[in-house]
């Protein structure tokens, strides 16, 4: 048995990021004694701060749609409920169609999306240019527009979850690397770090890109491996662009890319390299900026004069089928996965945090079992989301 004099927590969350911080918040709010461990020096310092901030419910996967509808509600009402400005803006999402191929893909998606009651429609070129007048008319034939999607600041949001989690009594320990998950008789009993040991009944793996490493500490395998995407932010200019623009047409060296104007007036953008760059490297390369710049200026010539301020690379913790992995491990009691967000940890975070709390408290909603089926760690991973 683990040393009974050790501090004991109901739940230890590993990772104080897009998933860990909201999970801690909802668990603590539900009355659990929560400890969050992170090897970084403060909240959101690994992948959260590298996220660009888009939040949409307009996915094609039913589980993500349900989670994100709830998330939009949480993000959009956060300020009035809790007082912190997380820079939420309901700008909507536009997926542009450069040609017929994209038009077909997007229109196919609409069928599923509309069946979930999502507010999303096809706009022809003229309608699209009314919503986004700066698009290059020679480059777009139309696109989908979902006005209720939006964006917020990942860092401010995760920071808000963190501070309010502490108000509910959650404890956070930074600069603390988990070295061992202590298991006795097939059950989680504690966590050992480079600085101490903590007793617990439940461990939540919310380690993002490092999910697989944290799983292996308990001898578990979870199919999460990160690939890297590059992003950048510009100077601030007066507002001129409302929605997030997503261009799904592949280009040389890249698949999709997307950008939006944040509430601060800055354009934030990100590109998906093609082929994917697997691994943990997050150092900036020389190829990203010229590649994404050309695609963006081509699509929206007005962007040619905006000045890039900073660039970085972040990791997408990918799963084989592009859907998150949420649920208990069968092999060890009390080991709960909340991993594999595939680059959408920020927009999924609060809903996942609530779901994790419902799992821990055995108070699932009626719709949850279906979601958990889709996101099960033991599913086939055979499918592939139409649009990630």
């Amino acid at each position, binding site marked *: 048995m683990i040393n009974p004099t050790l501090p004991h927590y109901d739940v230890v969350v590993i990772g104080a990021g897009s998933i860990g911080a909201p999970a801690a918040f909802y668990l603590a709010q539900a009355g659990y004694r929560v400890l969050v461990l992170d090897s970084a020096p403060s*909240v*959101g310092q690994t992948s959260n701060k590298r996220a660009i901030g888009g939040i949409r419910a307009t996915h094609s996967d039913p589980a993500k749609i349900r989670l994100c509808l709830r998330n939009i509600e949480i993000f959009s009402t956060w300020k009035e409920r809790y007082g912190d400005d997380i820079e939420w803006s309901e700008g909507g999402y536009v997926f542009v169609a450069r040609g017929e191929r994209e038009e077909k893909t997007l229109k196919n998606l609409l069928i599923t999306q509309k069946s979930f009651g999502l507010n999303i429609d096809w706009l022809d070129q003229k309608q699209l240019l009314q919503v986004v007048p700066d698009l290059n008319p020679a480059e777009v034939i139309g696109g989908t527009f979902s006005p209720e999607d939006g964006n917020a600041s990942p860092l401010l949001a995760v920071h808000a979850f963190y501070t309010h989690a502490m108000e509910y009594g959650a404890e956070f320990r930074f600069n603390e690397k988990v070295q061992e998950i202590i298991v006795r008789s097939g059950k989680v009993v504690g966590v050992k770090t480079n600085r101490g040991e903590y007793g617990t009944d439940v461990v939540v793996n919310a380690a993002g890109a490092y999910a697989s490493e944290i799983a292996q500490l308990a001898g578990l395998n979870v199919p999460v491996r990160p690939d890297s995407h590059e992003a950048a932010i510009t100077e601030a200019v007066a507002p001129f662009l409302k929605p997030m623009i997503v261009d799904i047409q592949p280009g040389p060296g890249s698949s999709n890319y997307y950008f939006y104007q944040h509430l601060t007036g800055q354009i934030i953008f990100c590109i998906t390299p093609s082929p994917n760059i697997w691994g943990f490297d997050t150092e900036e390369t020389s190829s990203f900026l010229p590649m994404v710049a050309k695609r963006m200026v081509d699509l929206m010539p007005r962007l040619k004069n905006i000045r890039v301020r900073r660039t970085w690379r972040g990791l997408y913790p990918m799963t084989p089928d592009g859907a998150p992995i949420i649920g208990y491990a069968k092999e060890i009691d009390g080991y709960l996965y909340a991993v594999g967000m595939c680059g959408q940890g920020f927009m999924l975070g609060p809903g996942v945090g609530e779901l994790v709390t419902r799992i821990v408290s055995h108070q699932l909603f009626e719709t949850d079992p279906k979601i958990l089926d889709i996101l099960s760690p033991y599913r086939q991973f055979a499918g592939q989301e139409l649009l990630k």
Partner: protein
Amino acid sequence: MSDYRIRQHPILPIPDREAIEFYWRGKKLDALAGETIASALFANGERVFGHHHKDGSPLGIFCANGQCSQCMVLAEGMPVKACMELVKAGQHIEPADGLPELPLVTEAPTFKPIIDRKVQVLIIGGGPAGLSAAIELGNRDVQVLLVDDKHRLGGKLVLQTHRFFGSTKAVYAGTRGIDIATRLEKDLRAHPTVEIWLNSTCLAVFSDKKIGILKQGHDYAVIEPEVLLVASGAREKFLAFKGNALPGVYGAGAFQTLVNRDLVRPAEKLFIVGGGNVGLIAGYHALQAGIQVVGLVEALPECGGYKVHKDKLARMGVPIYTSHTILSANGGEKVESVTIAQVDSDFKPIAGTEKSFGCDSILIAVGLDPVNEFYLKAKQYGLNCFVGGDAEEIAEASAAIFSGKIRGMEIARSLGVEKAEIPVEWYWTSEILKSKPGDTFSEELPEIESGVFPVIHCTQEIPCDPCSGLCSHGLIYIDRKDIRHVPSFLGNSYCCEVCEKCVAGCPGLAITLVNYRENPDLPVVSIPYEFTRQTIQANDRVSVLDTEGGELGQVDVLSVHAIENNDRTLVVEVNAPREIAQRIAGIKVQDEKVTHPLDHYVAHIEDDTIVCRCEHVTAGEVRSLIRAGYRDMNEIKTVSRAGMGACGGKTCVSLILRLFREEGITREEITEYSKRPVFIEVPLGFLAGANGQENDAND
């Protein structure tokens, strides 16, 4: 219309430049072709360039070096840095008030491939270190690409109108910085293997060992060098005090840029914070440009700069307040006054000692930080890279010249084109040139009051030797083995022929001659003088001062002349009574009234001490976060936005680290900002290789 141009200068030639016109807020103003927008505005007395989008506070020049983005204006609707962009005839310039509108673009651009090249050696920075290294490499036919973000080579040498200290043999000591720049450039341009890109800013060193450069202001280039030399110099440190972001508060280096490079008078009355060489020299340069210097504060009990620089400034009539600090810059839209106070041994202001002075500008000269972000990234990514000059270690420009030379040799050796060992003496010389001032001795006055004697008012150990080569009889002696020793005169009263070369040639203006030969009771004293001839004539009565600026009395000017082969330093001969003759070191040039404090001190109540200029974050905001337990500067950045702005944390880091120190937090507890490129903002169209972009840019 007020004219803020420098029309005459004791050292600098005033070039004839084409007059052009431009529009500021719709008003037609005069400018000179080839000058920056900032200088054109300053020449017209315009010092407020815009207002901050967060709080509407006024903005003006700060670094004048393309680093900080405080001087943004809209040129034909395009946001540009006024300090880097050249003004064009007929151009319409508007202040940047709040967030700028991104200009509409009606025509989609076409694209060209971006430049992608390999070179043997890439040198970032064409200042003293970069130029010297490039010359060494050029001598060995190495293929070099040298990039510099300014419109001419020389780096900060082109701002230095004074004669350099250091070693005559190794680094052109005794020659003025501006002239060293010209010589180095001439030497360099003789080498066909060295390619030079001016107006070309280094943006980033990437992990694939490539360096992103914005060539000539509009062509993005990705360069892959075999060897990288970072000679990117230094940037000025800033200081936290109330009102520190008011237009009119800026770096001493920025001031020297406006005055000595651009020949504008950005101030009429200025106050200097910091008694290092930069502040002391900036004060001297101000006086030479006809700008009044109200005073200088230094928090330490002694100035950190060379004593000869301090003495020189004091002798011009500038009060130096040691053990004093600045409390506030006061004013509405721009600086109107400064408040200072004495500090105790813990550097805390002593209540009741506050004083205010009327002034329109406050220069901050509290030290320099290396521009080392490129070097750190290059090291991290495993490039074969070297670093020289201030980017390696802050020291005098003479030291940078020499360290550049050594780096050039080292690079040649690493490429295998140079087999010879680098002489050990070079490293020794390099260390001497970098050394801080040593001991100060009391001034030795000649014992005999007959014949002619030089009086050497240079009593501090500093690396400087030009005087030892000036005397035609070799009678001024400095130990060759270590030029930091103070000079001494080896002759007797009969030796000196009164050639006055030592008087006119000492970089510190610290040698006078006392000539008793004609009238031992009223000897003739030869004094160096570096102001325009119009300011002093024979038969004038002038106030003479001792070495440290103590008044000795009024004397008559006998003559004002230039000696043969002089380098723009005049020699003034005065008749002085025997009792004071040997102690005379200089002539007062500034009226004492200029330096009088205001009747009452100006209290500054508002808590507007800014630590992050880009996002206007106050010291109070950051301090409260530190007190709440924040130790990761990235977290401070998240909640306060300090460090998120255009400059990329170039100014706020040292200020925030200082706040931590004041709160008793050790460095080990603190996580610094993660540093991410690009280090200078660059338009997306340039990165994309969009054609036609150069029309919008500055050629």
